[in-house]
């Protein structure tokens, strides 16, 4: 079990199986690249902006573009994506997409088969962790990953707790650069 304590301790007591902590953007990019059918699930925390005015959703769109990853828009995020010129590949709420993902026979967003790597980005940590717990326990056919600035113990792979947002944004920029390598 990882010794990392989640940022929000209400989610701390996961038990014995916790996310592998990864701090190297190149390693994260490799995991994404290795996936055959990844999926990026975006949540409403991405509607906020960085101090220099960049909408966090833009990071998600850049990651999706660099990695050729379909996007699932949850909550009210579709509006912002459309505003930024991108149509989501599907629109489900968090519990709905998790419910579909846990079915190994689901055909996935592209109707090519269920996904093998699911990334959560911008979902509030309590709800996100609960959704990841569902997948941890009931979807052994896929791995999960988070791109948020806090540690998510129920994921397969998670970022650490970033004390400063700037460091997290640096990680995301480096991840995008790594995904673009060898395009």
């Amino acid at each position: 079990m990882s010794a990392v304590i989640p940022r929000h301790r209400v989610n701390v007591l996961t038990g014995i199986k916790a996310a592998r902590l990864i701090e190297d953007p190149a390693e994260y990019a490799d995991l994404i690249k290795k996936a055959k059918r990844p999926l990026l699930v975006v949540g409403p925390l991405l509607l906020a902006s960085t101090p220099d005015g960049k909408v966090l959703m833009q990071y998600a769109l850049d990651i999706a573009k660099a990695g050729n990853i379909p996007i699932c828009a949850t909550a009210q995020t579709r509006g912002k994506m459309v505003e930024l010129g991108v149509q989501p590949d599907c629109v489900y709420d968090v519990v709905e997409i998790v419910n579909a993902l846990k079915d190994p026979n689901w055909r996935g967003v592209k109707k090519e088969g269920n996904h093998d790597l699911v990334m959560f980005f911008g979902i509030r940590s309590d709800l996100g962790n609960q959704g990841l717990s569902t997948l941890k326990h009931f979807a052994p056919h896929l791995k999960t990953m988070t791109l948020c600035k806090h540690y998510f113990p129920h994921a397969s792979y998670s970022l650490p707790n970033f004390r400063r947002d700037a460091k997290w944004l640096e990680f995301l920029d480096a991840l995008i650069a790594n995904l673009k390598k060898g395009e």
Partner: protein
Amino acid sequence: MAKVKELARKLEEIHKKIRAEIPWELVGPTPMPGIPDLRQWDMRLLKTYAPFYSPFCDLCCFCTYGKCDLTESRRGACGIDIATQQARFVLLACLVGCSAHAAHGAHVLEHLLEKYGPDKKIDLGGSISIEAPHIRTVLGLKPETLGDLQVALEYVFNEVSHLLDSCHTGQEGSALDYESKALHAGMLDHVGMEAADIAQIVGFSYPTSVADTPLVELGWGAIDKNKPVILVWGHNPVTSTAVIDYLREHNLEDKVEVCGLCCTALETTRYSDKAKIVGPLSRALFFVRAGIADVIMTDEQCIRTDTPQEAAKAGSAMIACLDKAMYGLENATDMDTDEIIRRMIDNGEQFAILDSAKAAEVAVRVAIEIAPRRRKEWLTEERAIELAKKCTNCGMCEQVCPNLFNIGDGITEVAKGKFDLIRQQFLYCIGCGKCEQECPNKVPIFKIMQTAASMEKWKCRAGRGPIMDTEIRNVGAPITLGTIPGVVAFVGCSNFPDIDDVAAMVDEFAKRKYIVVLSGCSAMAAGMKKDQDGLTVYEKYPPNFDMGGVVNVGSCVANSHITGAAIKIANIFAALPLRANYEVMADYVLNRVGACGVAWGAYSLKAACIATGCNRLGIPVVLGPHSSKYRRLYLSRKEEGDWRVMDARKKQIVDTKEPAPEHLAYVCETKEKAMPMIAKLCIRRNDTPQGRAIKLNHYISLYKKYIAPGLPEDLHLFVRRDADIPLVYKKEVREHLQKMGWQPREPVGLPTLIGTYPSKVPIDAVIH
């Protein structure tokens, strides 16, 4: 043979209890149902709305075999798997919730039976003849006296014991059967709540058969701290009504301020419109720590386990008034009243006093005595700025905040003399106090937040109890045909992501002519916001159970009147017999009554049980994001689900391909997502084309307003034929449907699930 005899004896016993010989209606197939009796109905529901589990923990630590690791398909030492463990936990939560309401009812009833005897008649006024839709439907009993309510509660307690038994280590091995049991507990809960509230209405002469109950004052600003202040806190009105009685008897009602927290506040304002509501549970610790209350009286449920310590710190006297929470205090029930008062005043001692009249006298006399000596002042902004300077914004507070925000940012701003952020954060605060406990610099966060706590006062309509039969007759047709787009019930606790969400949602749906019903902490939160004209939703909208009405039914136990109204529509409007006829009632509600519950801040075990009871009755519930921690939802798989129904008129099974209602228990992350989801969950298979067009009009416009331009992705699933398309979106929707390859389909004449699963109920039973 012995089994048959046993069943016959049991049935005879039940018939005796429900006085089956009195033919107000024929006794239906399930009088006083036991665990297996409605299991097939549950399994049918669970086939379409499968349990969705989100384990909070990988382990089971229930017995000394464990802790057992349940990850990766492992089973515990008793054989349990992770899904069944979640289902067991949900059942346990529901049982605690059900017990809380039923035991509350039993305590109230015991008090009233002592006062009035068992033969006191139940009379809910001239406009309510179906006085107890749940008791009639579930037990088959028409309760006529307080003594009859005892029969209902005894039935609940008996069933709860059996259900609790099933949770023992190494017993039930099926998650679905645990879910069926949880649904059973949910149904029992609504019986218990109904018995409790009927007893209260009868015993305390609460308003009944009236819509226009008084508007009572709500908020800290409403409380006159210059008077002696008594705070009543919890859910059970036996003591708080005794306080009002004492004040009235001694001509002190205008001299002593009585205010309440949580449901006791709602109960007390049903008894006296001079009583004030402090606010929901999320405001409790703030208010207690402010020290405004001279005496704090706790009864039961949602009263915090550290009340004696907090009261002592604030210099408030404290009395525990019910056996559910005695806090280790000396039981002074038999002690001389003057002696209790002397020791409370001279020594600051706290007591448990289980005699309501004695507790009331003590509270009033102590409050009058100590109030003049106590300093009761709100913190000034200048002092708050000084206190805030100790904050280093280390972020420890955020790590323990259940609502996941950094109060340190707000406190740092206060130190600079800026209060805007902390005022905003106060709306997110659920009032648990964990941030202050964690602060390494001992910053008095709650005290500082007093400056953010609005001194404004608002209005809340006093709880009115059951919906009147006359109202049901007026709205029955438009609800079932869909021309009233839905009944939306905002219920439950104050674990809100943002307290302002509730008033915003109530306003949105009332404006759109839905019937909006409220109870509990949500009823208070809805009143805690004014529009630009200075009006709360209770002042802005009529109090009738009719389109565009905003109705406060009362406290937690009054939730039974909301579900009871759904049953009454089936019984009064559709003339379907309800006596011991649960499946028919639930089937009617599921297929034809466009109702949706919203428990946006649900935190409690009681809320889990109330929602589960709604689900068994066919009412979907939307929950706020925190409720993912309840571990279980009931979700369909949209078009991949089983949407077959029986057309009762043609006696044919029809695949409607229509997910209506789409889910039974659903979590939304934001109010923006919740708005269109609520509208969608009011869609029913029985909607007429006109009704469906109205419902889709709201679904589409809410989607456009809160989610994105364009149309909902699943719209095609809810359009049966062209006439269902709202006029205003006709062109856009037609183009969309064409792109989707949509094909028209015929609406079902009389949709029912009866006939699609094994049941004792004949199909003809649903034809009215």
